[in-house]
């Protein structure tokens, strides 16, 4: 089998796999929330409600796809696509198992940060193009929140890069053969987890779409599959952050007995469930709390993490 054919097969497999997982998460999340909040969740369509996703898909595809006459049409249409494209592109650099990855960039981690910084546009532009007060407020909140949390998301990963000596995710996994980076970089892990929650705009950081004050925030005017793109984009984002946490801090595909790909899946699903548990149990923050928490607490902590890690590496060498 030629090298290009192999890459194309991996590419298609990753694309289909990620989209299937993201769609499945819609069902998984609602069932888990039901379990943790002592209620049923969707249980009618198919066994254990597992066909709920299919029912939702049929509904969302056949709904009227309406563009408000006052909206800025081209931007309104592009905005939902941006989030799906940028989050899907980030999967290109994740090594799922030895040899199963789309591309091994030597700037892999920077590529992820670049894509996550571009996903801000999706939400900000959606809010602006809708030409609606609530949407605009949601878009503004999203822009401020994601700009702030992106800064220390990048900084929290510097410790990992210093320990591994590379931006390439494959080499970062290989560097964890002795000990997972969650132990020497525990602070970095916690900061990345919080920043990841904020980047995917999930509770407790879902201020841009706080429904009790902003109707539905930036996607108030969206309907049909355009709304579906935001919805699926959020779940792809959750899968992406979980896969990255597993790769960067928990040894990626490394593990005893089971095949590497299975280890990667187990670790990723563990963190996805963690994300859902956070949503099930935490309330939403207030907006000023969110911003001051980010800039006044998390940013200094991530800088401290870099200084201490650097000092230890310097002392050890």
């Amino acid at each position: 089998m030629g090298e290009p054919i192999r890459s194309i097969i991996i590419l298609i497999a990753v694309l289909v796999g990620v989209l299937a997982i993201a769609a499945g998460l819609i069902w998984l999340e609602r069932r888990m929330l039901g379990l943790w909040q002592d209620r049923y969740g969707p249980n009618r369509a198919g066994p254990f409600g597992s066909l709920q996703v299919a029912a939702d898909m049929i509904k969302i595809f056949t709904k009227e796809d309406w563009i408000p006459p006052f909206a800025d049409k081209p931007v309104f249409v592009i905005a939902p696509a941006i989030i799906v494209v940028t989050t899907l592109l980030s999967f290109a650099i994740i090594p799922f198992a030895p040899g199963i990855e789309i591309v091994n960039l030597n700037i892999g981690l920077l590529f992820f940060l670049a894509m996550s910084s571009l996903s801000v546009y999706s939400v900000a532009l959606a809010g602006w193009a809708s030409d609606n007060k609530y949407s605009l407020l949601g878009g503004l909140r999203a822009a401020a929140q994601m700009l702030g949390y992106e800064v220390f998301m990048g900084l929290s990963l510097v410790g990992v890069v210093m320990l591994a000596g590379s931006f390439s995710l494959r080499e970062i996994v290989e560097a964890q053969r002795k000990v997972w980076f969650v132990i020497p970089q525990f602070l970095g892990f916690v900061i990345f987890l919080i920043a990841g929650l904020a980047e995917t705009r999930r509770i407790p950081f879902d201020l841009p779409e706080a429904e009790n004050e902003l109707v539905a925030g930036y996607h108030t005017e969206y309907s049909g599959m355009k709304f579906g793109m935001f919805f699926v984009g959020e779940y792809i984002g959750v899968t992406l952050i979980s896969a990255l946490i597993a790769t960067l801090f928990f040894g990626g595909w490394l593990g005893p007995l089971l095949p590497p790909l299975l280890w990667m899946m187990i670790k990723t699903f563990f963190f996805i469930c963690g994300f859902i548990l956070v949503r099930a149990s935490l309330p939403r923050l207030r907006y000023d709390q969110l911003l001051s928490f980010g800039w006044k607490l998390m940013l200094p902590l991530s800088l401290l993490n870099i200084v201490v890690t650097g000092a230890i590496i310097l002392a050890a060498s």
Partner: protein
Amino acid sequence: MNGVFYLSAVVAILATMMVVTRLNAVHALLYLIVSFFSVALIFFTLGAPFVAALEIIVYAGAIMVLFVFVIMMLNLGPSSKEQESVWLKPNAWIGPSLLAGILILELIYLMVLTGGPTTSPTVEITPKQVGIALFGPYAIGVELASMLLLAGLVGAYHLGARRPRGLSSRTGDKS
């Protein structure tokens, strides 16, 4: 790689021209972001992946978001579009095109003089090499840049700091 280079160069030029001619500020900014993407791709094909990544993270991902943020806050209506179309009259193009034309002529002259661009094999510069260069021979430059940023930070803090009640927050009120 040559084909990719020329293709992204063409996209960069087209996108930048659209930036200048758009009447809607947000549309112009979006074209500018596309232009940054193509410049990043050019850096990548020239063997500088680190610079390409920074181009997207810093320019397209952070600075332009702030621009979009500010323009969203201004909430420019259709009136600003009319204003723009008044400003963008054919007369307004004469001066800038003349100046740019002189520069293009100079560029062509230089290219003819030196016999066109030499295509040397691209050497990829890894992030590690960039870091070693930055904190080795260019350490002073990095330090100076950080001083400059610190000054900006202190200034922003001064402007944004909350003053105790009773004191005027604007200097304009005193005069």
